[in-house]
């Protein structure tokens, strides 16, 4: 069997480890347009701040490819898939054939159509290591930096830059930060915390026009900047599969085995849409854990095994300026809320199930809540008061507890 993997991040690594569970000898070729050995994308903001040094950026040990008998083709791009003849066209003009293919092409930054933004030399995006290196080379301790977008990437950039630049302003269209992850109460707590580190927020406004060193907002307000970071979200890299005739919705459409609509072509990671087990709707859940598990599932199936990944849901474990935060699932349902100055806990119930939560600060053992959501546990048999108090296994009845303590999992 000859396997080809496009991409070199979590989905690709999951795929390699999945394949090698059963097939120790099949030829694996990995192709990536980045020149690095597999590194952790979520660490680029830590690298920017100096908290993580170069050698700790790598997602797997140095001998990873060798140990797994993987050939790599780095620094080139796959430009086309011919699914009928099972041949890829590479940017250097060469052709590569495959028997089973994984498309783990991830996503790219989305740059909104703001007047002048593409011509602006000091405007950058932030998604991969090279973009972090570019940004680091542009800043100094006097720089006035504006970040467009207060989502996960925008706030992580701000954290990475804090203390290394002169002023830091985050502009967000929504009336709060992290609008797709946090509710208003949670966002307010986090905002107050981040503002202590001299980050300034402008909410309910957006970029209208960019000139060399001046940003004009939709409200007419003008802000001067030395560096502009555009963190307005990402778009999935679906074109290779779409152009080959594969089915694409918001992302590449796959089934639970991670097969696309094209024979012998699998897809995994931020370029794929999946069914959210909480809401039942299809969307892209661009999270590293999902990418790894989708990739692993694809790898096992590519090697002739039988695996399914059917438990995707939105979740985030992310800290800002020392304030930890964990969220999961959906916030549509009956709420139980505990709120303090710097602590926040919201549990969301629907019928006899926990469907979502937000926890700021006291995130200990939150995985027990996550498991209740992921495994759709019927809460009729559990002690709800204990569940509200804190995540603990004591909330289960004796029989369930015995199984769980023996390592048998939360679900029966």
């Amino acid at each position, binding site marked *: 069997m000859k396997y080809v993997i496009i991409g070199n991040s979590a989905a690709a690594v*999951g795929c390699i480890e999945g394949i090698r569970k059963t097939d120790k000898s099949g030829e694996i070729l990995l192709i990536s347009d980045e020149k690095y050995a597999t590194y*952790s994308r*979520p*660490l680029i903001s*830590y690298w920017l701040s100096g*908290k*993580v040094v170069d050698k*700790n950026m*790598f*997602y*797997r*040990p140095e001998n990873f490819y060798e140990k797994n008998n993987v050939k790599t083709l780095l620094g080139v791009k796959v430009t086309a898939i011919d699914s009928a003849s099972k041949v890829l066209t590479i940017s250097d003009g060469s052709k590569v054939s495959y028997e089973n293919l994984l498309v783990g092409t991830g996503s790219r930054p989305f740059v909104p159509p703001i007047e002048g933004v593409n011509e602006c030399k000091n405007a950058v995006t932030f998604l991969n290591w090279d973009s972090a290196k570019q940004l680091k080379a542009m800043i100094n301790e006097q720089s006035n930096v504006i970040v467009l977008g207060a989502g996960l990437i925008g706030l992580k950039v701000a954290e990475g830059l804090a203390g290394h630049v002169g002023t830091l302003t985050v502009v967000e269209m929504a009336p709060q930060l992290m609008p797709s992850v946090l509710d208003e109460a949670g966002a307010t707590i986090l905002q107050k915390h981040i503002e202590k580190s001299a980050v300034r927020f402008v909410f309910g406004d957006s970029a209208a026009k960019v000139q060399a060193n001046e940003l004009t907002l939709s409200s007419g307000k003008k802000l001067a900047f030395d560096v502009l970071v555009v963190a307005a979200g990402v778009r999935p890299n679906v074109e290779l599969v779409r152009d080959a005739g594969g089915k694409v919705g918001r992302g590449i459409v796959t089934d639970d085995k991670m097969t696309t609509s094209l024979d012998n072509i699998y897809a995994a990671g931020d370029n794929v849409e999946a069914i959210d087990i909480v809401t039942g709707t299809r969307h892209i859940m661009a999270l*590293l*854990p999902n990418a*790894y*598990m989708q990739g*692993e599932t694809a790898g096992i199936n590519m090697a002739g095994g039988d695996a399914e990944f059917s438990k995707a849901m939105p*979740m*985030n*474990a*992310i*800290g800002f300026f*020392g304030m*930890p935060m*964990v969220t*999961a699932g959906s916030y549509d349902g009956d709420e139980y809320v505990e709120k303090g100055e710097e602590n926040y806990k919201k549990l969301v119930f629907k019928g006899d199930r926990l469907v979502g939560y937000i926890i700021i600060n006291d*995130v*200990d*053992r*939150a*995985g*027990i809540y*996550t*498991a209740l959501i*992921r*495994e759709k546990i019927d809460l009729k048999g559990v002690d709800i008061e204990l569940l509200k108090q804190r*995540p*603990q*296994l*004591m909330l289960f009845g*004796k029989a369930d*507890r*015995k199984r*769980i*303590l*023996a*390592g*048998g*999992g*939360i679900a029966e």
Partner: protein
Amino acid sequence: MKKVYAIEEYCLACHLCEYYCGFSHSGEQSMVKAYKKGSPQARIQVEEGSEVNFALNCRHCDNPICVKSCITGALTRGDDGVIRINTDKCVGCWTCVMSCSYGAIVRGHDEKKVALKCDLCTENGDTPACVEGCPNRALVFEDRGDAK
């Protein structure tokens, strides 16, 4: 593989397992010294209930969601089945805390702020310190075959 199992009927909630675990991972030779220096954190946690108590540490799952979810590659599963954390690589994002169904991964409180977890004391001896130190045999170290 051999793992640590709790017998809730015997647990007195004395928390000695936590003390022995903290000591075992403190790098100190004497328990008194270890606890004088600060409070070394345990990788095992006692849950106290109205009727029963039990201690819980990592289940060393065959299919470990924490390892698969780790964003840095700090968590690994060794050939011996033991799940370990490389604290030099951990950045304390707590994705593992969010992922572990058992709530078995502990947030470190010292200045490093990294995840801590049971390593079955494989560096320090044959029987894990929590099991050795349990005065009522509420913790056992045994091979029960392939748990799910």
